[in-house]
């Protein structure tokens, strides 16, 4: 009976086990092995030791891609989380029906395919006549060339990313809904002001959700690809002449692996990305353990 049950349990797990070996663990190991080879898909992989990693350390485009990606992440994540928290707090101030409608509206940008978002913002961020600069013009500000001035392309990408706050807002709003009303009311009776109530009751109570949003958003930001690739990379005329101002890490990985067919080098790039994400997530979790209040 028991062994029969175990056999059945593993029968149900079988798809996962096959997938784990074939599409997760296997590729991880293969990627590690490939990173020590020179492989262009045509000949056999040739062992080159640490050459790829040495090349990577000396590659100015890797440095540029890392710089752009980290800068984007460092600007995007705090802004996105603070804005999403602000929206969630506002949603929490209004009653049922209206909150539902606003929540739906905030999520709509997240239902727009990332390629379409990239296209849309090519128009909205257009330096000559785009909507953003029109609006800035109303306030007497002459907006920059968001899509063609190398100094302003990254800020433009950040602005685009802030259009999409829906998922984070919904997670934080759900967390706010779970803060017991008695707690804030008791604090109010004790004379705590609204900032004190937020700082000492609400924030600790939603810190786990906030922490989750920060981690997920950071991992996604470090892998930014679709929108940036749509706007600034590709075949034919769309290729911009603005240097590597919009070169993100995964874009470079894609170019190396699938345009130049440098499979070994791309694998080394992938492992560096994995290491960077692992280290950043680890630090966030360590810091989070001190700050997050778990019940």
């Amino acid at each position, binding site marked *: 009976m028991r062994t029969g*049950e*175990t056999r*059945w*349990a*593993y*029968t*149900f*797990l079988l798809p*996962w086990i096959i997938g*784990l070996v074939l*599409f997760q663990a*296997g*590729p*991880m190991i293969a*990627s590690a092995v490939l990173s020590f080879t020179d492989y262009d898909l045509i000949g056999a992989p040739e062992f080159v030791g640490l050459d790829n990693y040495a090349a990577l350390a000396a590659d100015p485009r890797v440095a540029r891609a890392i710089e752009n990606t980290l800068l984007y992440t460092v600007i995007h994540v705090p802004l996105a989380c603070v804005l999403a928290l602000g*929206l969630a707090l*506002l*949603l929490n101030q*209004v009653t049922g029906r*209206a909150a539902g409608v606003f*929540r*739906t509206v*905030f*999520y*709509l940008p997240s*239902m*727009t*395919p*990332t*390629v*379409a978002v*990239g*296209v*849309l913002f*090519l*128009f*909205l961020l*257009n330096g*000559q*006549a785009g*909507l953003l600069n029109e609006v800035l013009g109303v306030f007497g500000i002459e907006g920059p060339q968001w899509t063609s001035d190398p100094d302003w392309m990254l800020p433009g990408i950040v602005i685009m990313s802030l*259009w999409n706050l829906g*998922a*984070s807002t*919904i997670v934080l709003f759900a967390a706010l809904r779970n803060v017991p009303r008695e707690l804030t009311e008791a604090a109010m009776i004790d004379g705590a002001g609204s900032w004190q109530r937020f700082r000492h009751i609400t924030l600790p109570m939603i810190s786990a959700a906030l922490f989750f949003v920060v981690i*997920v958003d950071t991992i996604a930001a470090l*892998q930014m690809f679709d929108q940036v690739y*749509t706007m600034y990379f*590709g075949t034919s*005329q*769309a290729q911009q002449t603005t240097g590597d101002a919009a070169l993100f890490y995964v874009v470079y990985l*894609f170019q190396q692996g699938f345009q130049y067919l440098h*499979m070994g080098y*791309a694998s080394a790039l*992938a492992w560096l*990305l*994995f290491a960077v*994400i*692992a280290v950043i*997530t680890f630090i966030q979790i360590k810091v989070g353990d001190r700050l997050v209040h778990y019940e």
Partner: protein
Amino acid sequence: MTARRIFPLMLLGAASAIFLYPFVWLVFASLRPRDLTFSGQLPIPFRPQSYADVWDAAPMLTWLLNSVVVGVAAALAVTVSSAFVAFGFAYFRFPGRGVMFASVLGTMMLPAAVTLVPTYLIWNSVGLTGTQVPLWAGNLFGSAFYIFLLRQFMLGLPRYVFEAARVDGASYLGLFWKIAVPLSRPALIIAFIFELKASWFDLMKPLIYLQDAELFTLPRGLKAVVDQFYQGGDPKWEIVLAASVVTTLPLIVVFFFGQRYFLQGIATTGRR
């Protein structure tokens, strides 16, 4: 109403306007003649012709159908296989369960970009690059996020229902198919629509695996439209805009029908 009540509503209204206006702009601009793409607010003069032209300029209908087929295949594959695996975790007590479940949680942390190259080599070795198979077939083995979601849901199902069915002589497959699946419907719908969305969004896999434009999905097709018509000597912005609307609209429709599940899914899993 007091100022305390009105102030948040005003701010939320302003935020809504910021989130909604880009949609309005996109639709209106796609209905204006090209030389008025950037000027004017309303679609005047009204020119819906771009929506006729876009089907001629690019095989949009083929791409739309490809997206539907690939999206449904991807969503169906991942939902059924993840439910199957989730049932294994939720129902049985067996040696190795902790380790196996840790492997599920572990892969949630693994960035997709890391396995990109070897996964390509796998599909290449079986001669399936250049086909749509790699766009969905990897989903046949379940996906960590959905396995986790469905396991949590199934753990919440009353145990005695399963025990009663066992006493009545149901097989384990019967328990899964006749009890766990029907009772998990809300969670299954969440898994299905999230994967449908993910597939509808995906640009990377079509870029890597597809060369033949006839096989493109909508995002890959839209990228081709941008490359061809956004810049160069004779830009056709109205085509690019109309193609963007065509790419976006089906998903917005799905969202309005499945709204409840989307919002619930995000609130419970944090999946975006």
